[in-house]
């Protein structure tokens, strides 16, 4: 199971990266970033996955003792929460940039923003 998830996450990351590196449209690049992020999140969750584990919430099923044998790793889940929110922040800011760039130049082509070089 984790193998598939892992492969999916890696491939998602690579597809996202391909989007970032190959698409000329700034919004498409940001879409690439979103995919990249999603892939990352899947990856992190996968890292914390334990075969046959339950959600890391203590309830009747898990009890409160020897919990460690029953649940999946909560730490990556905690991390991924943070990562998702950060990802949203970054995406929002990038989109704001995209909007501003469009306002400045009426273009979303990354190649049109080459005033600074060398």
């Amino acid at each position: 199971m984790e193998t598939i998830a892992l492969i999916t996450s890696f491939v998602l990351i690579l597809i996202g990266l391909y989007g970032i590196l190959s698409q000329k449209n700034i919004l498409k690049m940001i879409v690439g970033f979103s995919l990249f992020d999603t892939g990352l999140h899947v990856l992190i969750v996968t890292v914390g996955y334990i075969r046959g584990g339950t959600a890391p919430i203590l309830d009747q099923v898990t009890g409160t003792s020897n919990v460690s044998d029953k649940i999946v790793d909560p730490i990556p889940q905690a991390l991924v929460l943070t990562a998702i929110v950060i990802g949203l922040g970054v995406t929002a800011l990038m989109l704001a940039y995209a909007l501003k760039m469009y306002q400045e130049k009426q273009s979303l082509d990354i190649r049109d923003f080459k005033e600074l070089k060398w």
Partner: protein
Amino acid sequence: MDFISPINVVAVSLGAAFFMGLLGKKAQTVSYILLLGALLFNTIVSGQWLYGLATNIIDAQQVYTAGFRPPFSINLLMGLDEAVITTLVNIVGLLGAIYMASGLHKKGSGSQVVYLVLIMSLNVIVLSRDLFNIFVFLEVGSIATAGLIIMQKGINAVSAGFKYMLATGIIASIMLIGVIFIYRFTGTLNLDFVMQSHPVLKQGALISSFLILMAILLELKPFPANGWALDVYESAHPGISAMLSSAVATANLFVLYKFTGMAGESLMYYISLIGLVTFVGSNLLGINQTNARRMLGYSSIGQIGLLVAIIGLVPHSNANFKLIFIGILTGHYFAKAGLFWIAGIVKAQNIKEWSVLRNRPVLLFLFLTFVLALTGFPPFPSFWGKWQLVMGLSQQGQIAAVIAILVGSFFEVVYLLRWAGYSIKLEPGKLPEVKLSQFIPVILFGLGIYATGYFVSQATNFGDTINYIPLVVVAILLVVDFLPAYIKNSLSILATGWFAYLLIPGQDTLKLVFTVIFLVGGILTLIPGFHVKGKRAGFYPSAMLMFGGLALLIEAENMLQFFFAWEIMTLGSYFLIIRGKESMVHAFSYMLFSVGGAYLILLGFGMVSVGNTGLSLNLLSQIKFYPVLAMALLAVGFMTKTASLGLHIWLPGAHGEAESDVSPMVSAILLKAGVFGLVLLMLAAGGEYNNYQGLFYTLGWIGALTALVGNLGAVFQEDAKRLLAYSSIGQLGYILFAFSIMSQLGWLTGFTYTINHFMFKAILFLSVGGIVMRLGTHNMYEMGGLIKKMPFSFIAVLIGIITLAGIPPLSGFSGKWLFYNAVIMKGWYFQGAIIFFAGTIAFLYCFKLIYSIFLGQLKDNHRNVKELPFWYLLPQYILILGIMVFSAKPDLILKPLGTALAAAFPSNPLIWEGTKALSQLGYWDATTIMIVIGTMFVILLIWLMLMSRKAQNVKQFNIVYAGERPERPELTHVSHNIYAGYNKALGFLVAPGITGFWNYATNLVESIGNFTRRIYSGNGQSYAIHLVSYIVVVFIIYISSI
């Protein structure tokens, strides 16, 4: 003393930030004050810890969040290292906020919040010991930065910001992958626990730590995956660029340092490689920049690369690691922030417009301070850092790294000093109004860099042996720069005299010669300064920097002192030379050669220190590591100063275009510093019986060819001062040749030439310089007939050229006689013949000089020219007296010199029978010759006077002239290109082949830079591609090596 827990930095900053969000747009002033308050608080906290930890009042302390010990919760560590770094970050944060007062004000609380959060996040990444926590706050920092970039209006900042976000987005993701896999493979996120589990040993953990380190390295903008950073530096508000360059980079470097524990030795090697490539590459590309802020960006990236390299190169256990790191870091930190801030004041983007700084001398001074600090001149921290770095690396045997560092530094010097030159020399425009809030941080950083420099010097090995008195003198002169010139001139003469008084008594004979040349010469060449009216701003600090450096050079007992003195002297002379009207370019090329030479010396010293303990100059006699190469490096280093063949092209311009009284200083005195270095070196090589015969043989040939080319070059000059400058090249060629003979007679020759050149070149340059000053032209063909207007100068020049040409009975002949004996005894016949040929060529230019200026036809526009001022004549006549004494009684100097040399050069000494000197080959009695020639001359003069009757003085044009009568002196004064025939026959020897070589080399470097920088196409996506490919390439190289 209560220490405030560093976590309060987070609490207070965020609390203030959130509160500022509440304030909204109306209460900008309140929120700005709040911002300053929070930043001040941060500064106090970190400063307090710095103080406590540095004075051992308190130990390093862990801060546990949430009440759990690591690895269960996130912890912060406040140790001395962290305290230093956070203090640096917070100080620049506070001052930056003051600097950007108006900008932050205008943009409202939003930008202030972002600013505050940025500083807070930097504190956290420095302190935190948790990998994921560091990731989060790195992200906070990147987003804050992305927000601050767009404080600046316009498309440039927006597109730069987007490129920045693209890059940091990818970097952060890579880091996150690394972090999550580190957790997977080590089971913890706490840095200390990660390191305990030795990630190096497991392939997966190793790759994860590789990714983390790559991410942080990419944050540090490695060449060439750094186009995004350059755009930011260029387009962001200068205050923000300053912040990025000093605060953010400092914090990130520290993170890299923290993380290196995860990496194995092999990865450290790649870190150092990445750093070095960045340092060299970035500075190479910097050469082509004309936009000041972009150039600073290149320089920033280069410096950060150097620091990365240091982290990778120097073992962290090495006692000096921290000193090196802090030295170079603070040099960069203060200077780069200061320069970016000044960039904001100046506003002009093009480096050629920076001359506006001249409207504000204090600002110009600070600007130069920062530029020099970046280039690693003393007394700035980076000097000590670089010194220690080179020494340390050499001792590790990392000579290749040292060379890379020196090459990179050299490139940096090229563009920084060109910039400095522009701002000193070009015509200033109007400086925008300077706000006090902008000015204060710059001044504080200016003071800070001096203070840090002193502090670092005291921590450097042997740094406490440095004598700062000359620099204090310079500082005093800087402070009193508003006084009229004659007061400062007197002060300078007094100070030089005082140095002489301190140094001369008890000085050993060989050094005494140089002491007298440097300091007594200094006094003599300062005397003409009394002629100058007005303030002569900046002249005296520069002059005393040079003379102070020379005094320190004499005093130097260890290599550090020597190098310190060498750099100080170079710096002073640069500022002196660049004062000339047309000398910007020439001072620049002088400086490039000097710095190049200094780096060779540094490398040489580094090699000397390998396998030896201590830094004593005596170690030169026991070089263990490639002794011949080390010797050769040092020798070539010194030869850049003596302008030996191949390294001479800077001299004619530099000496020729300098001010009238500066030319004698740099020509008669400064060149001898190189000779002094050579003398020390050759003595240490073991004197007569040394193991470097091949090296000295080569030097001998170089000396001979230098003499030939220098003198030949002088023959074809039309510019009087350049003629003398070329002559200096030739004379220094003789000196190099003579010392290379490595026998007692050779050395006596060398010393005689040195003393003579000092005297006659000072006389000639003073006279000619004075005449140029009086007439306002350098061109000899525009002069003529001045003997009637300036008889005293004529006599001085006549004596000067007789000495120069070596015509008996004056002291120049002593040199020639000794020279012949030395050469024949050594068996260097062909070199000797070349030198002799060069000597006869000297007649050509001597005649041209004196004839074109003083004889022939007086020009109409010079009919009212007056004799040189008294202050110019006085030192000349003192020196003439010196020549006369040395001519009549050479034994006064040569006898003790011979005794002093006997230890190193025991065989075939010069034997004195009274005033008669005997060598194995011949004999020579200077006193008798003087008497014979003098008597004969007088008798013959009387004979002529008896025979001739009432010689009648006739008018200028009363000459026999076939057929027609000359009407204009210009038509009758033959001077321009009078050696046309000679040029036809031998001119090919002075075809500018060497200049061509250097031009070619410069063009090559520039075009490589120009070609390479095209990778920075401006396309943000390409930059992202660079980033990813960088990771992949380094990964492939790395993985294939393990």
